[in-house]
C-alpha cells in the first residue's frame, strides 16, 4: 500500500507538471499566432479603434505574463473563465458593449456539456474497435503464419490506410444520404453516434489487431503453454485462462497510447459529422479564437491523458503481478 501511494503521488506530481507546461504553452501560443478574437467577435466592418478598445476591456493587451497569472489565479479557484463568444445556452454571442461578462457561458459548463457526448462517442468507438480487433487479433495469433494471420494483417493494413475524413464522408453519403438508414449529421439521439464511432474504431483497430496478434503468437510459444497442454488442460482452457491474460498487458498499455489517436480522431470526426462533442467545441473555439475555451480544453485533455495512462499502469500491474511500481 505504501508503495502504491508513493507511486500515485509521483505520477500525480508529474502529471501536474505536464499540465502546467501545456497550459502555459497553449496560453502563450494563442497570443502569438495570428488571429484576433476581438475582430472575429465584432466583424470585419468594425473600426479598428473600436476593436482595440474592446480588446483592452477584455485584458488582451496586457503583458502576457500578467494575463497568464490572472488566468491561473482563477483556475486555482476552480474558475476556468468565461467564453469570449458563447452564451450560456452554448450558442455563440460576441459583439462588444458586453461589460457584464457574466452573460457569457462559463467554460466549465461548456466542457461539461460536451464531454459526455465525446465520452459516449469514444466509448462506443472502443467497443466497436474491440469487437473488430479482438477476434481478428486472437485468431491471427493462434494461427500464426496461416490464413487467419494474413487476414488480420490485410484488414489492419486496409484500416490504417483509409483516411478517417474520407471514410466518414463515405459512410454518411451511403448510409445517411443515399440509403437513409442511419442518421449521422448533428445529434438528435444515440443513433447519431454510430457512424462517427465506426470511423474512429477503424482508426484505432489496426494497431490493436497487430499488437494482439504478435502478443498472442509470442505467448503461445512460451513453454508454460505446452506444459499446460501436456498436463491435460484443454486448448480452450489454456487460451482463455492463461494465454489471453499474458497477452493482455502489452495491449492494455497500447490503449493508453491510443488515447492520443482517439482524441485526435474525435476532433476530425466530430467536425465532419457536426457531432456536438468536445472535439467540435475545440474546432469552433480555435476558428473563433475563443481563448478561454481553448486553454481549458487543453488542460482538460492533458489531464484526461495523464489520468488514463495512470489507470492503464495500475490495471497492468493488477493483471500481471510480475510488474511493480
Amino acid at each position, binding site marked *: 500500500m505504501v508503495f502504491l501511494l508513493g507511486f500515485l503521488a509521483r505520477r500525480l506530481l508529474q502529471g501536474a507538471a505536464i499540465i502546467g507546461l501545456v497550459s502555459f504553452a497553449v496560453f502563450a501560443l494563442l497570443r502569438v*499566432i*495570428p*488571429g*484576433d478574437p476581438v*475582430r*472575429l*467577435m*465584432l*466583424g*470585419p*466592418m*468594425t*473600426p*479598428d479603434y*473600436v476593436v482595440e*478598445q474592446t480588446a483592452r476591456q477584455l485584458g488582451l493587451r496586457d503583458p502576457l505574463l500578467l494575463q497568464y497569472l490572472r488566468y491561473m489565479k482563477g483556475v486555482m479557484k476552480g474558475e476556468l473563465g468565461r467564453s469570449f*463568444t458563447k*452564451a450560456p*445556452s*452554448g*450558442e*455563440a*454571442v*460576441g*459583439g*462588444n*458593449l*458586453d461589460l*457584464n461578462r457574466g*452573460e457569457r457561458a462559463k467554460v466549465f459548463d461548456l466542457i461539461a*456539456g460536451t464531454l459526455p457526448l465525446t465520452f459516449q462517442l469514444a466509448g462506443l468507438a472502443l467497443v466497436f474497435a474491440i469487437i473488430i480487433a479482438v477476434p481478428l487479433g486472437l485468431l491471427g495469433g493462434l494461427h500464426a503464419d496461416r490464413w487467419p494471420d494474413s487476414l488480420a494483417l490485410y484488414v489492419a493494413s486496409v484500416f490504417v490506410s483509409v483516411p478517417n475524413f474520407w471514410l466518414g*464522408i463515405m459512410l*454518411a*453519403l451511403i448510409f*445517411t*444520404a*443515399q440509403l*437513409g*438508414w*442511419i*442518421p*449521422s*449529421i*448533428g445529434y438528435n*439521439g*444515440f*443513433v447519431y453516434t*454510430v457512424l462517427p464511432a465506426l470511423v474512429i474504431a477503424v482508426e484505432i483497430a489496426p494497431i490493436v489487431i497487430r499488437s494482439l496478434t504478435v502478443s498472442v503468437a509470442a505467448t503461445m510459444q512460451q513453454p508454460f503453454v505446452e506444459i499446460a497442454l501436456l498436463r491435460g488442460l484443454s486448448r480452450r482452457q489454456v487460451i482463455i485462462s492463461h494465454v489471453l491474460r499474458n497477452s493482455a498487458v502489452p495491449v492494455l498499455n497500447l490503449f493508453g497510447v491510443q488515447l492520443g489517436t482517439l482524441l485526435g480522431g474525435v476532433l476530425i470526426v466530430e*467536425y*465532419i*459529422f*457536426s457531432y*456536438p462533442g468536445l472535439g*467540435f467545441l475545440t*474546432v*469552433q473555439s480555435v*476558428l*473563433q*479564437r475563443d481563448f478561454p475555451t481553448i486553454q481549458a480544453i487543453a488542460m482538460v485533455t492533458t489531464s484526461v491523458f495523464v489520468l488514463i495512462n495512470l489507470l492503464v499502469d495500475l490495471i497492468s500491474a493488477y493483471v500481471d503481478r510480475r510488474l511493480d511500481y
Partner: protein
Amino acid sequence: MKKSRRGIIKFAALGAGLLLTPQGRPLLRSAKAEGRRKIVFASAEPLTGNWDPTTHTILAQLNIEAQIFGQLVRCPMRSDNPLEIVYELATAQKITDTYTIEYTLRRDVKFHNGAEFTAGDVKATMEYASQQDKPGAFWYPGPVEVEVVDRYTARVHTNKGNFPASMMTFAAAAWPMLSAADVNDPATLRTRPNGTGPLKFVEQKGNDTILARNPDWTSGSLAFDEFVFSHIPDGTTRVLAVLSGEVDIIERLEPEQYATLSKDNRVKLTRTVANENKYMHFRCNKPPLDNVLLRKAIAYAIDRDQVAQVVGAAATPSNCYLNPAKFGYIDIPEYPRFDAAKCQELLKQAGFPKGNGLPEIEYLVSEGFYPKNKEYAEIIVAMLQEQGIPAKLTVMEVAAWLERIFQKKSTVPYADIVDVGWSTGTPEPNFILKAQFLSSKALFNGINDPEIDAIIELESKEPDIDKRREIIQTRTLPTIAEKMPSFSLFTSVLIHATRANLEGVYFYPSGAMDLSKAHYT
C-alpha cells in the same frame, strides 16, 4: 455452442434487443428531417454577434436578424430591378429638404413582446445605432437626429452627420428596428432579440438557434411553424445533410458541388448574383505598390476571364468596383483587361523593365471561406510571374487572414496585396466607395489620394439622385480605376441548395433569406 431451440430463441432476442434503443424505438430509422412545418438552415458561419445589432457586423448574425427584426424598407436587389424599394415598417418615405427625410409608418405593427411599433422606436433605434463608436455604425453614413412628428411619422435629420438625406434612400435597407424600451435596457437587448419580423426568437440549444412563427406578423402569415439556424462548418457535411433531409437549406456550395448536385433531383439549386465583389487590394501606403504605374501593370497582367473560369459557378464577370445591384453600377470604360504588352510598357514606365529591380510582392489570401480563392490566387501569381513580376502567395486560415488584412495606423501593413470580398446588404454604394477608397477609412489599401477623396465627397453630398448617379458613373468610378488602389476581379455568385419540395425561398444578394412565401409542396 449446441444448436437448440433455446439457443435460437436467445439469439433472436439478443438481435431484437440490439436493434432497439432503451426507449423502445428502433435503432435504425429513417434519417429524414422531422415533419413539414419546420425549416432547418445549415449555416457555414456560427452566430458570433450578440443580439444587439449595433454591436457587430457579423454576416451570419445579420442574416438571422433579418428574420427577427423588421426594417423600414427592404431592397430585394433582384437582377431585373436592382434598385427596387419594398416598404415594410414604413409605408412611404419623402425627402423634405437636403438634410431631412420623413418616414410614414405602418400602423398596428407589434413587437414580439406585444408592444406597438411607433415613431418613438424609430427615434430610439436610429439615434442609438448611428453613434459612431459602435461597430454597427458602419451602416449609417453618420449620426442622425430623429424628430417624432406624431405617433406614426418620424423625421430624420442628417445634418449632424453632414450627409444628404438622399443617402438614406437605400441605406435604410440595412437598419433593423429595435424597441425603444430595449434600447433603454441594453442588458436585455443583448440577451434576447425583440423585433417585428415574421419569426421570433425561442431559444438557443447548443449549435442551433430556434425561431418560431410570429402569429401577429402584420405583413402576412408564414406557412411553417419553426425555423432552425444550425451551424455546420464543413461544406461537404452541409451537402450530405441536405441530401439526407436532415436540413432543408444550405449555403456556400462550392462550384464542383453545384455541378454534382444539379443532377440530383432531391435538391434545387439557386444562383444569386451577390452583393459582393472580390478585390485585390494593393497596399498603396507601402513600397513598391505606392507606385500607381506598377499597380496598373499588375492589373493588365491578370486575365480575369481565366480567374472567373476557375471560380466557375461562384463568379460572374465584372468591370466595376461595384456589383450590379449597387446604385451607380456601370461597366467602367477602359477598365483593365489582360494585355501583356500594356503590362510591360507600364512596368518600364514604373522603372521596373520586365520586372527587374522589383522586390518580392506578397499576395495574401484566405482559405476556407470564399470558394476557390486559393486556386485563383495561384493562377494570378503565375500570371504575374509570367510578366516578370516576382509574386509570392501566402495562404492563411480565416482568423489569421482577418487580422492581417486591415490597415492599422500604428504598424506597417502586412503583405503587399490582400484578397478580400466585400458584401453590404443595400444598394447604397458608399458602403463600398467610402470604406475602401476614402483616405480617412481605406480599410485595406491605405490609399490617400485627394482626387479620389474629392470626387467621393462630391457624390456623397449630391442630393439629386440622378446627378449623383451621373457623378458616380462618369467621374468617381473612372477616377478610382485610373488610380487603381484596388482591382476588382469579379462579382461573387451565392449558391444555395434547398430540398426539392421547399418552394418560395428568396435569397437576397447579401445571403439573407426572405421566407415569407416559403412552403413545402
